[in-house]
């Protein structure tokens, strides 16, 4: 499934990070890689962006960006 389809408080493992060059590389550099465990902390009040916990820190992505990341629950 896609990261953007996850509900708050769910945990998943990254299977693949897609998307275009700069965005993809930026996501990888922030430590979201294949095999990384992701916890969905919450969605913003307007349902976008989404707040994640990765490698012990909090990061936010837009829902459309999260849709580039395939995960496995």
């Amino acid at each position, binding site marked *: 499934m896609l990261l953007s389809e996850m509900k708050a408080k769910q945990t998943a493992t990254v299977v693949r990070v897609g998307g275009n060059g700069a965005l993809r590389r930026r996501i990888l*550099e*922030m430590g979201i890689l294949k095999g990384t465990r992701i916890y969905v902390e919450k969605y913003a009040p307007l349902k976008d*962006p989404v*707040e994640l916990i990765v490698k012990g820190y909090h990061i936010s992505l837009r829902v459309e960006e999260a849709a580039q990341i395939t995960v496995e629950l």
Partner: protein
Amino acid sequence: MTLKRLSIALAGNPNSGKTTIFNNLTGTRQKVGNWPGVTVEKKEGTIKQSGYELKIIDLPGTYSLTPFSIEEIVARDYILEERPDVVIDIIDASNLERSLYLATQLREIDCKVLFALNMADVARGRGVKIDAAKLSELLAVPVVFTIGNKNKGMETLLEKAIALAESDSAAPQKRKVKYSKDIEDAISKIEKIIGNHDAGTIPYNIRWTAIKLLEDDKIVKKRVLEKTVNIGEKILKEIDHQRNFLIDRFDDDPEIVMTDERYGFIAGIIMEVLTTSTKQRVDISRNIDLVLTNRFIGFPIFIFFIWAMFQLTFTLGTYPMNWIESGIKLLSSVLAHGLPNNIFKDFLIQGVIAGVGSVIIFLPNILILFFCIALFEDTGYMARAAFLMDKIMHLIGLHGKSFIPMLMGFGCNVPAIMASRTLESEKDRTLTILITPFMSCSARLPVYIILAGAFFGARAGTVIFGIYLLGIVLSIITGRLFRSTLLRGADAPFVMELPPYRIPMIKSLLIHMWDRSKIFLRKMGGYILIGSIVVWTLAAFPRHISYSKDYASEIEQVKRSYQVEIPAARDSEKSVIKQKMDLAVSRLIRSKAAEKAEKSYMGRIGKVIEPVFAPIGIDWRGSVALLTGFVAKEIVVSTMGILYAADEKKDSKALENALVSSGMTPLAALAMMVFVLLYMPCLATLAAIRRETSSLKWMIFSISYSTMLAWIMAFLVYQGGNMIGA
């Protein structure tokens, strides 16, 4: 004896506590400027320590050294070209894994690196323990523990940095990231070609250069080709060959695979140096966020904070404003009595002091506003504001972070435009800069207060609120329009860290606040002063005017007639008659001043441009006031004060009364407010636009677009209002 000089650069992730450490090390001896050619803030400070003179440079906070954002390019270029003696990498101990990504890149770049493991106390509180000796050994880098916000470990940090700088050995070559065999083979093949040729030398570490070429790093590629003209073709061919081979082999771009492998290398280190206790960690920051970014109360709290910020700025600010006002009045009156009557005295009191005084009065507002913004930034709330607002800002085609400069625009557009630097994409930045001037800055407020106060009485507050709202609406429309025409293209990725909440340090808040207020003060020293002088000169010349009537003799006449009347009157009526006389005299004096203004150069210019402003209900006096407002919007008020012959000695009510009696209609006042809101940004803002976009084109575009929009909107208000008979 001259001290030996060393340069120490501070690198690190955003929110790693780098700025705090920089503030601790340099104190108030900071120099804030710009990195050459770009709009990234450069901070440096020089200190003396153990017989050395140390130049400390605060590099921009980055997560990586890939050349995606200006910050990263600046940081990397500094290390590559300026070759600091030591680079201190500040690592947030509770964020070790991600921090090490930048660290591994610094190791590759071949500079002398020292780790400052910062805030290990916080990490320990969260159940994270780091084996520093092991970390130091695994990466061959000295490690120092620091606690930035408690000012601990700074001495050791500097001593270790000096020792490292003075050690003979170059940066160790071992203990760098080792990639998988295919990539290592490709690296060494490229190394062989660029390291062994007869056409000049590459000034960087050869392995690093080979890695960057393999990653298809455009900047490094260009520089390598410049240095190796003879074999450029050969190098390009080899890079292509190796990249294609790797893409084929891994089914992905080499730079992606290498990022992955760097994190793999880091994971190995983490396993050895990090122990996480099973103790249930109490994460205060997360609990705070449960409230502050809550689905239901997140927005109300956000709006409350913004409201509180404006309340503080404008109500608390009134007290020091009054003190400054009295101070200026005192100064003027002392000078008025102390100096001989000549043109220089007029120039000093009416030109310089009145002009600069009318602006310096906003200093308390600016200080409080910037203090609040620094508070938002240093606590970590600013990132939450962007998190909350991104959806809305995205509708305009902007990043959540754009909200910050736009919000600051309500204070003063100049620092607001400078704040757009936090945006990574150039298009986002340009767009934010173009629409920020529609955020009604505090300098425009006095104009609204006077006009709305005079014509809308009890509804003044609502009218002013409406003006602010109009600015916001037009910025949204403009944003959408430009996004789909001039600045088309994909939005920048919204990949943003939400750092843990921190208790801000007063010292750093004050430094922050002061840095920005300095910009405001400098604006005053420069543009406003020159502008005030120009305006005063245009108003004061020509010196000799043929008045329509002989004011002096008329005044004499009035006085004489009353002098006959007063002794004849009964005692009880004497003071009343005396008051009447004073009133008549001051009316004459004011009409003389008004006539003088009308016949001055400025008045003549106003008459010439009047036809342009007539359709929007503004007479020549308003036109002149608007022209002078180009220097700074608040000057509009003082110009109107002179032109409408308001009694300066009384309060602002005098100008309001003068405006009402001049025949200005409420509708014309509204049109003028709309015009003031939208028309071309002030001189200082234009200078900021010019600097931040590094383009004269955008500055001129901003002038024409905003002035045209202002005229059209004011026209719609005035003519439309007249039509519906308002």
